[in-house]
């Protein structure tokens, strides 16, 4: 029995096109819809060119969406025009970026980088309070206050990423979009950052949109997952459903390509190649196949997929 969970972010028909009308038009995000419940982590997975990063940037209004609605906490933020409205939104939603080497201003001290949000929103009444807030944030992400007077280039990738997290936390947001925050880090450091994000979620009640291309890490941290390819959402469901019972051909090919630290498994793994279906005139969209498990398909393919899911589930219970 599930209580009615509050939907914090509801994306409806989001379109993000670049160079509209010109010969080099790019449809980075092409009509996607998904929702995120408060307090959960929604993983958005895809390879390069899938549109996952663009989705994140559209939601945080770094771009102006070409079409569709983005409803955050009840308000359609794709339509905000006023400065005060935008400022309020920017306190609620923050972003963590991918490249630890480019996401921090090389000429600013770490203290000032973290305190930027505090300064913009006047969250500290004097320099002493600002300093104590910054030191607190440094501690929360596992760094030492003495690191505040140093410059970004003196830190390792993992440490820089933690500085980026501290910067996002400084304004006390409700929702954080993590745009491939661990892709550029070593595997052992990835675990640190992921654990930190999970701890923060528990302590501060945060909601995450976690964008990544590493499906096994996404599965670990996410409650629900969406799989993107060429600007479309091809499959969406709980992380268990997508990872263990993913049925869209692209999901299957993605799952079969992930290497795991297990030589026995690796020796027997057979890779499935994804061949995009030829254009036929059937209307395709995300349809619910089993409860809370959606697949991008046409009307007549629904039954085929349902059977596939049931077969996979049956096989799993046998093992």
């Amino acid at each position, binding site marked *: 029995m599930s209580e009615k969970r509050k939907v914090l972010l509801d994306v409806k028909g989001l379109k993000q096109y670049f160079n509209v009308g010109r010969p080099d038009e790019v449809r980075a995000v092409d009509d996607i819809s998904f929702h995120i419940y408060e307090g959960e982590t929604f993983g958005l997975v895809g*390879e*390069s060119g899938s549109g996952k990063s663009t989705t994140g940037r559209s939601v945080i209004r770094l771009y102006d969406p070409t079409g569709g609605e983005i409803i955050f906490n009840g308000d359609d933020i794709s339509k905000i025009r006023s400065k005060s409205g935008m400022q309020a939104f920017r306190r609620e939603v923050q972003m963590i970026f991918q490249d630890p080497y480019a996401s921090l201003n090389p000429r600013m001290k770490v203290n000032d980088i973290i305190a930027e949000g505090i300064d913009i929103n006047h969250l500290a009444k004097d320099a002493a309070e600002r300093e104590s807030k910054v030191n607190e944030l440094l501690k929360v992400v*596992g760094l030492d206050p003495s690191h505040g007077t140093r410059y970004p280039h003196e830190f*390792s*990738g*993992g*440490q820089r990423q933690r500085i980026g997290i501290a910067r996002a936390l400084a304004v006390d947001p409700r929702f954080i979009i993590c745009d491939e925050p661990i892709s550029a880090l*070593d*595997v*052992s*450091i*990835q*675990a*640190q950052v*992921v*654990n930190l994000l*999970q701890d923060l979620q528990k302590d501060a009640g945060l909601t995450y949109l976690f964008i990544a*291309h*590493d*499906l*096994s*890490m996404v*599965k*670990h941290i996410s409650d629900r997952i969406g799989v993107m390819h060429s600007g479309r959402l091809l499959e969406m469901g709980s992380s268990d459903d997508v*990872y263990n019972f993913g049925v869209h051909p692209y999901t299957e*090919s*993605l799952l*079969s*390509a*992930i*290497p*795991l*630290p*297990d*030589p026995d*498994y*690796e020796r027997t*793994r057979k*890779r499935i190649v*994804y061949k995009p279906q030829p254009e036929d005139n059937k209307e395709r969209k995300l349809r619910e196949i089993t409860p809370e498990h959606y697949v991008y398909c046409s009307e007549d393919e629904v039954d085929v997929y349902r059977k596939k899911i049931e077969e996979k589930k049956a096989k799993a219970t046998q093992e």
Partner: protein
Amino acid sequence: MTMEKVLEVKDLQISFDTFAGKVNAIRGVSFELFKGETLAIVGESGSGKSVTTRSIMRLLSSNANIDNGEILFKGEDIVHKTEKQMQTIRGKEIAMIFQDPMTSLDPTMPIGKQVAESLIKHNKVSKKEGLDQALELLKLVGIPNAEKRLKNYPHQFSGGQRQRIVIAIALICYPEVLIADEPTTALDVTIQAQILELLKDLQQKISTSIIFITHDLGVVANVADRVAVMYGGRLVEVGTSEEIFYNPQHPYTWGLLGSMPTMEGTEDKLYAIPGSPPDLLDPPKGDAFYPRNEFAMKIDAEEAPPYFEVSPTHKAATWLLAPQAPKITPPAEIVRRWAIYAERHNTTAGGVK
């Protein structure tokens, strides 16, 4: 896989001169590479894996010093060879492929010419012969329509295809040793899988030995026959793939294995090694890993451990293997793996290691 040694590194020590002082990047590394095998060197950024392989190619920066050690290639020490002598080895007998396919290729030269260049220079063949061979290699690495594409430029290919071209360039002279420095890190996971399959396939056909550098243990499990784990400029554990994955002994290896999500995915939290890799300007005394090691003992802070031999093919540099060391329980994930190893080796008749 024969036991003929193609490459042997003995007690290599390399330091860099920086404004802040001497950075001891490599502090006594020794390993062997046998003919036909793939040796994976695993480690985090800053562990020294790239420096090690660049020293084999003698491609270190000007402020680097090889303070000590030998690098024996086919029995000959190449540390003291001149640049001219090294040029006859690089590309012909020892080849290297790098991480970023975007910057590994010359954007102003057609790819046919780039692939043929190495062959023409080293084996002194004619331009036509070189291009013919280049075509063969491009077909071998799976570039579709290779004849038509010989005249294309790198920007006309995708990332995965570019990496294939890079591999073709490296292999055209049929080198003894191929050093692959994180060749798939920048690629999508499906493309990565293709490239790894390609490398394994080519290894058979060209019978080259591969040193594969990566920080991704999944990739290691896929390609490696033997694994060397590097930390703080030293090799902390070396063994066969099976031994490293199912019978690891060094706490750092445990940390690496524990920090990846498992197939079952039932764990709540990943086992994360706390802290960051050591600053090699001022390396810690003793075992460089001790500040981040939850199983550290007093002696780890005093004296660096020797290698303890677990099997003829498996050694680990940790005081935990000394007879006086207390018996500790490793993390759950490692216990699970040890169980698989124990089961496998008790049920195998004849005591095969």
